[in-house]
């Protein structure tokens, strides 16, 4: 980045000027003068261009001066929203793959969403994230991924739920088949509320606790939405695999998908939550995992019940019997809300 190079040159130029003016001054005074930006110099030496890129962001108001930017479009213009969709197919596929295979220390947000090549070093630096600076939001330029993942998941849920009913009718002709279009509406509302309201709550909570942390700032709202959106991707193949009418296999796939996506969420949130008190961190992470598990179980129970609740279940249908007992409160609750 040209601005980062300009910063580096500016530093050296100033240093050489100072040296030229006061050739006999002690070196300590110069390093004192450079201390406010001392970590910048350190970063230039150690991290190469990546380090400079990271450090430029640290100084909030200086970033605006040093990077020459085009003026940010206002939120009422179309190009503001266009900046959130500035992503290529390969980038989206990359991010999907990154969400499928979570690894500890592999911070999804920092690696993919902010285009930062190195990861471990970010945790040790003194980072102030400039929240008032809207350029931060431009880094999460992938609303297209989460939106279409949620849409796909909602429709796949409805379609496979319907297919389960068809297959059940094949096996047992007494089952009454109907297209059940209302499930599409329920699926859509549930998935979209989950993918937007839960990140909103999480983001609000993290900002509220921002005062406790000094080192790592929280994520923006859009980055949280992106994290949740991409973490829901693993459920799409899982839902398709739930067509197989073997119950223990269904629970196994569900547990696997839940483990993968909850692990991805936890690993992404861990560096932000780490500096908080243990209690808050534990409560937050367990709340995230529990909500995710509730979503997975709710989907499984609501969309993949082969028998409608008003039919009396014969005892031979052992697979359907236990979930059916749980089903009636679920169905009544969802009917009340839909």
């Amino acid at each position, binding site marked *: 980045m040209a601005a980062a190079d300009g910063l580096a040159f500016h530093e050296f130029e100033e240093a050489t000027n100072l040296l030229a003016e006061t050739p006999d001054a002690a070196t300590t005074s110069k390093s004192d003068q450079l201390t406010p930006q001392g970590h910048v110099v350190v970063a230039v030496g150690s991290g190469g261009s990546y380090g400079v890129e990271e450090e430029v962001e640290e100084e909030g108001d200086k970033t605006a001066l040093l990077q020459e930017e085009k003026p940010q479009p206002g939120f009422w213009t*179309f190009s503001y*929203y*266009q900046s*959130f*969709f*500035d*992503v*290529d*197919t*390969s980038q*989206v596929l990359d991010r999907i793959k990154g969400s499928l295979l979570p690894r500890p220390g592999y911070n999804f947000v920092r690696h993919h969403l902010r285009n930062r090549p190195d990861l471990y070093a970010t945790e040790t630096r003194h980072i102030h994230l400039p929240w008032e600076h809207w350029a931060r939001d431009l880094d999460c330029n992938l609303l*297209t991924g989460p*939106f*279409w993942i949620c*849409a*796909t998941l909602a*429709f796949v849920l409805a*379609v496979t739920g*319907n297919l389960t009913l068809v297959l059940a009718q094949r096996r047992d002709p007494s089952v*009454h*088949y*109907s*297209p*059940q*279009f*209302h499930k*599409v*509406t329920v699926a859509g509302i549930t998935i979209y509320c989950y993918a937007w309201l839960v990140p909103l709550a999480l983001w609000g909570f993290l900002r509220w606790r921002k005062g406790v942390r000094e080192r790592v700032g929280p994520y923006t709202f859009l980055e949280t939405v992106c994290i949740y959106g991409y973490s829901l991707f693993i459920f799409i193949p899982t839902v398709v695999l739930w067509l197989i009418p073997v119950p223990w296999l269904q629970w196994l796939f569900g547990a696997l998908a839940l483990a993968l996506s909850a692990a991805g969420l936890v690993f992404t949130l861990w560096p932000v939550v780490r500096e908080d008190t243990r209690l808050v961190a534990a409560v937050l992470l367990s709340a995230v995992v529990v909500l995710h598990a509730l979503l997975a179980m709710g989907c499984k129970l609501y969309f993949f019940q082969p028998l*409608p609740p008003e039919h009396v279940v014969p005892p031979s249908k052992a697979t359907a019997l236990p979930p059916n007992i749980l089903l009636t409160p679920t169905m009544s609750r969802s*009917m009340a809300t839909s």
Partner: protein
Amino acid sequence: MAEAAESPGDPGTASPRPLFAGLSDISISQDIPIEGEITIPVRSRIRESDSSTLNESVRNTIMRDLKAVGKKFMHVLYPRKSNTLLRDWDLWGPLILCVTLALMLQRGSVDGEKDGGPQFAEVFVIVWFGAVTITLNSKLLGGNISFFQSLCVLGYCILPLTVAMLVCRLVLLAEPGPVNFMVRLFVVIVMFVWSIVASTAFLADSQPPNRKALAVYPVFLFYFVISWMILTFTPQ
């Protein structure tokens, strides 16, 4: 003015004079009235046709619009790279197709509300809001197609699926069975592929190559949902 015009045209003029150098020497003693008619052939033709569409019979107006819609239907059924759909867009065709589809897909009101196919409003909302969302998506990704052109293309490319709906309705009049289902499945799949091919023939060119898949996938999802609604339709 004549003197100034012909002075640069003099052959053998040693020094080139500025073009209207003699203009300042002209003095006009009185106002010269200028009158006459400026006729531009093209404009007069348009003026004629404007007044004639206002005065023509209703039948002519309807037939002209119907012919435009029919021509676009032909373009969809035989998709070639032509600009007609994009250049003269109109939303009559999509409206006719959407209303037809929704009328045929809606369930009877007598049965229970919870089970059954979509209501008229649900189909309408899915088609129109789906088309608007896809258009917004492709515009946000930087496509150079206008909003209504994209709506027009997406709406017209529902035509194969509407034909599939008609065929399915006819097939369902026969006795139900696996053969019935296979025929319907085959017809819906063929029409679904036709819709996708027709719409990508128009829409894919408007996106930069590294984003084509991102713009085409929502179109695929949209037609897949409509095909699903057609396939699972059961008459009450």
